[in-house]
């Protein structure tokens, strides 16, 4: 276990370094002089010179990268040009909003995806199975921005039940908070539910064919006990670890969903910064996202080994 952990930890270091280089390198793709862009309307050469010195734009790129990384490692992700605040505090402010949304989406996805996957595996090649598969195809093929717009049309414009946009913090008024996030969470959860259903179905099909399930049936256990206690428990392990990989899907989805429902979260922060050429924020946010993704994968790998005694060396 210790060897596995050390090897796995050592493996993510070069990946993280490459991610940071990639993110930093993106800025170099930008046409034009970054100092001119930062200065905005200002064309005064003295101001431009000041900006160049302040952000070390005169230094060679590797040196600039070194200073950026030095800041990142000490928790300083840079400063937003537009919002005049540190990127770290922006991240700390916006991340909880997206986490609430992602958490609710995950809950919705689990409530739909796992039962659908179980039913379609247990009732393989029946109308239940076809129905669940159709649902998965629908979930995978519906662009979430379209689903969002349709929901707004139905529940906000036509029925007037839910607010079309905006966000209220959970701590302020939880009822209002749920009302503002239920539609976006459903939009996000819908796509994830489809993925979960497919994972669950294939894991359950595999488990249902295993020897221990036959043994459980031979013992005379009733079918629901066999399915839920014996097959499901074993099938859930790969499903839960695959969930970590779906985190990226959730964040990608949040970008558009937050845009449609004007929710001031992480995704909207990225889009707004991209449009306002606020590169320090873009770099910081992408770095935080990638690091979270890599860490979640690591945790999933460790969890996988922990719950599966046969993998413990």
């Amino acid at each position, binding site marked *: 276990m210790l060897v596995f952990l050390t090897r796995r930890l050592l493996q993510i270091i070069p990946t993280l370094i490459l991610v940071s280089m990639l993110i930093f390198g993106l800025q170099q793709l930008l046409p034009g002089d970054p100092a001119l862009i930062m200065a905005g309307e200002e064309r005064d050469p003295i101001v431009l010179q000041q900006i160049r010195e302040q952000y070390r734009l005169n230094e060679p790129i590797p040196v600039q990268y070194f200073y950026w990384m030095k800041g990142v490692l000490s928790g300083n992700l840079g400063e937003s040009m537009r919002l005049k605040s540190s990127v770290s505090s922006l991240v700390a402010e916006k991340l909880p909003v997206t986490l609430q949304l992602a958490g609710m989406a995950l809950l919705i996805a689990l409530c739909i995806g796992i039962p659908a996957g179980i039913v379609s595996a247990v009732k393989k090649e029946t109308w239940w199975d076809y129905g669940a598969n159709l649902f998965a195809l629908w979930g995978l093929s519906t662009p979430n921005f379209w689903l969002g717009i349709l929901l707004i049309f139905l529940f906000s414009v036509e029925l007037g039940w839910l607010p079309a946009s905006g966000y209220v913090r959970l701590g302020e008024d939880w009822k209002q908070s749920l009302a503002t996030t239920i539609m976006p969470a459903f939009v996000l959860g819908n796509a994830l539910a489809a993925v979960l259903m497919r994972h669950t179905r294939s894991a359950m099909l595999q488990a249902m064919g295993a020897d221990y399930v036959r043994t459980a049936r031979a013992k005379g256990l009733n079918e629901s006990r066999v399915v839920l206690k014996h097959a499901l428990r074993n099938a859930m392990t790969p499903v839960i670890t695959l969930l970590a990989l779906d985190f990226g899907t959730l*964040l990608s989805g949040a970008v558009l969903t937050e845009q449609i429902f004007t929710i001031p979260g992480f995704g909207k922060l990225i889009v707004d910064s*991209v449009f306002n050429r606020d590169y320090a924020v873009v770099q910081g946010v992408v770095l935080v996202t990638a690091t979270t993704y890599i860490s979640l994968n690591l945790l999933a790998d460790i969890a996988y080994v922990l719950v599966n005694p046969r993998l413990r060396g």
Partner: protein
Amino acid sequence: MSLTIGLEENPWARAWRRLRRRKGAMVALFVVVFLIAVAVFAPLVAPYDPTLTSFTQVRKPPTWAHWFGTDEVGRDVLSRVIWGARASLSAGLVSVGIAVGAGVPLGLLAGYAGGWVDTVLSRIVDAMLAIPFLILAITLSAFLGPSLSNAMIAIGVTATPVFIRLTRGQTLGAKVEDYVEAARAVGNPHWRIALRHLLPNIVPPLLVQASLAIAGAIIAEAALSFLGLGQQPPAPSWGSMLNSAQRFLAQAPWMAFWPGFAIFFAVLSFNLLGDGLRDALDPRHK
């Protein structure tokens, strides 16, 4: 017994026979061909000029003259959906073309050469895959500047690591097979082994992935255009049509329905086709 030897079916014919048995995949194939035809013959099929504005026809609900209604400046929504197929399908095909064109050779190289080449390429792939797809695509296309061709490049680059990883994995599995050993034993150069012996044997999973990737690329292009990073107005694209429709949801819901439905329809077809291809091409699948 000797009779059956002559009747050995070639693998592509078998795959086609299996694909034909799958109703869903065949319907999807038909829809894909239909959509491509619509995109190619857009000038002939579209009833109106997609950029022709008319201030007497602003936000009119569907009628016999305008089947899908008109938009906020009186343009025919049906004609725009038809022309929008060009942007979406070409984005899907071109960006996946970029991803396959870059990813497959690099994956072959990593898998076949092994050693440090493999280590370096695999770590780069890990790094790129650590950034969520749409976030990388948005960032890239914003840095490149908003246009349809830049969006295609951004999506293509973002989709490349998946193809590198898939090709590498398949190559690793195939290169220890006897036929590769035999090709090496008779003195074939490395490039010939890679291109003539390995590549044809790993095409099926790549084909499946390409079909699913086209579906993903169509959604990504629509998303970028929705955000204003893809096709620029007044040129029609399904994503940018949805963006302007959002502002008139209460007055003209048809503006939002049709372009979204077109995206759904196209993506669903490529997903179904990919699923069907997987079932048809996988030799383990009976």
